[in-house]
């Protein structure tokens, strides 16, 4: 991608990150703190984003939608624009929880369309990777707890619906408690995983330039993150609770397990 286009895109990504912070606060604290700032930043970022796309178009002399990075950037811009319109028309604040992180991650990935000449020592490189791995593992641990609580929830819910209490019924905690646990673990797990995705993308980008995006493992990771995002959104904004939410948590764990298996072979990539 053209150099100036990338610069504008990175500025946009920086502004979008405010939206991500707002989302994280909303999810973990259950209150919208920064929404006004985040929506302002989103609008401003949209302008930079548009500039970046126009720049890219002029540089290559055609509509900038060819190749992975260009289409990713364009797609992120369109989502931003659409969200701004929807927000302006319907004031759907709650949708932000979903849109902010999505736009940020997409723009971040798109802004990696041009390799940098980074020279970092092996210590920094390893430390960076350790941070990524620790965050991912924390995220998985939280997700595992979410899924365990979800299984218990499903069992207890069934007992209560069947109306014939068996021994399980007396041993399991109340539904309300389990639901609380699911919400808490899921929120924190999401925060860990999101930060891990950002850290991991940056690492891979610096290490492998533009090549990394084509790796199927990366694709699976991003897909899993997307599922996690959808789950958090459905719960926080759309009020998915109870049985549906529990089933969803178990699905998310399944996807993560898949990602983890895919990454177990990342070592080969790393040692190269």
């Amino acid at each position, binding site marked *: 991608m053209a150099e100036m286009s990338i610069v504008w895109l990175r500025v946009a990504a920086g502004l979008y990150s405010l939206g991500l912070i707002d989302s994280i606060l909303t999810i973990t604290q259950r209150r919208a703190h920064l929404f006004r700032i985040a929506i302002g930043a989103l609008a401003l970022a949209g302008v930079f984003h548009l500039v970046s796309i126009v720049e890219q178009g002029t540089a290559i002399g055609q509509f900038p939608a060819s190749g992975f990075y260009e289409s990713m950037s364009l797609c992120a811009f369109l989502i931003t624009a659409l969200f701004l319109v929807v927000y302006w028309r319907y004031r759907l604040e709650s949708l932000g929880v979903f849109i902010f992180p999505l736009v940020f991650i997409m723009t971040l990935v798109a802004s990696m369309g041009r390799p940098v000449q980074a020279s970092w020592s092996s210590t920094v490189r390893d430390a960076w990777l350790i941070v990524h791995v620790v965050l991912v593992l924390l995220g998985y641990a939280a997700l595992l707890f979410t899924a365990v609580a979800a299984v218990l929830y499903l069992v*207890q819910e069934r007992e*209560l*619906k069947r*109306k*014939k*209490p068996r021994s399980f*019924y*007396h041993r399991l*905690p*109340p*539904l*309300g*408690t389990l*639901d*609380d646990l699911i919400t808490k673990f899921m929120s924190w797990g999401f925060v860990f995983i999101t930060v891990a995705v950002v850290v991991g993308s940056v690492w891979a980008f610096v290490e492998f330039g533009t090549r990394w995006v084509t790796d199927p493992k990366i694709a699976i990771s991003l897909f899993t993150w997307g599922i996690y995002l959808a789950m958090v959104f459905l719960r926080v904004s759309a*009020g*998915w*609770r*109870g*049985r*549906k939410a529990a089933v969803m948590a178990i699905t998310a764990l399944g996807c993560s397990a898949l990602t983890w298996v895919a990454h177990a072979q990342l070592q080969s990539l790393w040692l190269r």
Partner: protein
Amino acid sequence: MKLLVAGVSHKTAPVEVRERLAFAENSLPLVLRDLTSRQGISEALVLSTCNRVEIVVAADDAVDPVATVSSFLQESRGVATGALGPSLYQHEGREAIHHLFRVASSLDSMVVGEPQILGQLKQAYAHAKANDCLTGLLETIVSRAFNVAKRVRSETGIGQMAVSVSYAAVELARKIFGTLAGRTVMIVGSGKMSELAARHLRRSGASHIFVTNRTYERAQELATVFQGTPVEYTRFPAMLPEVDIVITSSGAPHYVLTRDEMQRVIVARRNKPMFVIDIAVPRNVEPTVNEIDNIFLYDIDDLQEVVNANLRDRNKEAERAEALVIQEVEHMMARLKVQEVAPTIVSLQGQLEQIRAGEIERVRRKLGPLTPDQEEAIEALTRGIINKIAHGPISELRKQAGRPDGVHVIDAIRQVFHLKD
């Protein structure tokens, strides 16, 4: 020391008999003092509740506590024990301990596992204690009974499950919501059972109760009882999304809450769970409401089913509790027996020591003054001999203490060593 429990309970006597024997709480000091003033009675405890009247005494071996308690009942209640026939039970010794442990553990209660009896026994204990009527054996046994009851409670599930319909409703609400603090309740219609359930919910922390009724005045009346808010009958469906627990018991001949309506309510609640208790017959809530996610509908039969299951579980737990009580009784008996042989051991040791001291004195007179070394040697020698002699009988005494036919062995040892009481 002898132990006797004499009394009547809901299992052996109808209320006409129990009420004739019952003691008013304020008469207890007098009654207890009367009992302990009788010959040979050292300790006494009187337990008088609506389901049982029991007199527990500890008496000297020389007296017959049965006769004493009979004459006490004759004099203070004007009831001849002969006239009571099989209504009156009298347990002595081991049986008495067993009975006390079972009563304290609520295994002899009308509803097995209900804990009130323990409180009543504690009160009886406090009265007896205050009047200096518990000083030894009986005190040990009754305080052990409290521990046994505690063990039964914590090691078996006997008191865990609700055995009344209204309590079952509260228990279910806890299973759904966790804590009930801050939950709101809506009562539709009125009825004894719904009032009772609402009262329990309120006591468990429910923050607010709305009451609605076709006649608004009735709703107002009921609302004052719970310090709740009366709601006009036409307005109550609109308030349902704000309510966590709904209790319906109206006399309406048709469904008051339909599936479609509840579907709308749960959407408006953003899927927060809801507990609907339908106590009305005919039912007020469409049964398929239970199929909606996050709504839990229980009708009167469902609640009864939960209660029945709990009662079955309780009876199963009661069997485990009975075994535990027997085990505790054995422990207690062994402990008492050890206490019984303790004086024998002491007098045996005393006897041997006396012989030893006498013999040393004799030797000293014969040999004249001894050097400290010699003194020490003789001391060690003689002590070693009597310890070796005493070892056999003492360990035999301890071993026989817990056994039913140990009395003969203990007597034999006492005779062999010429031990006096």
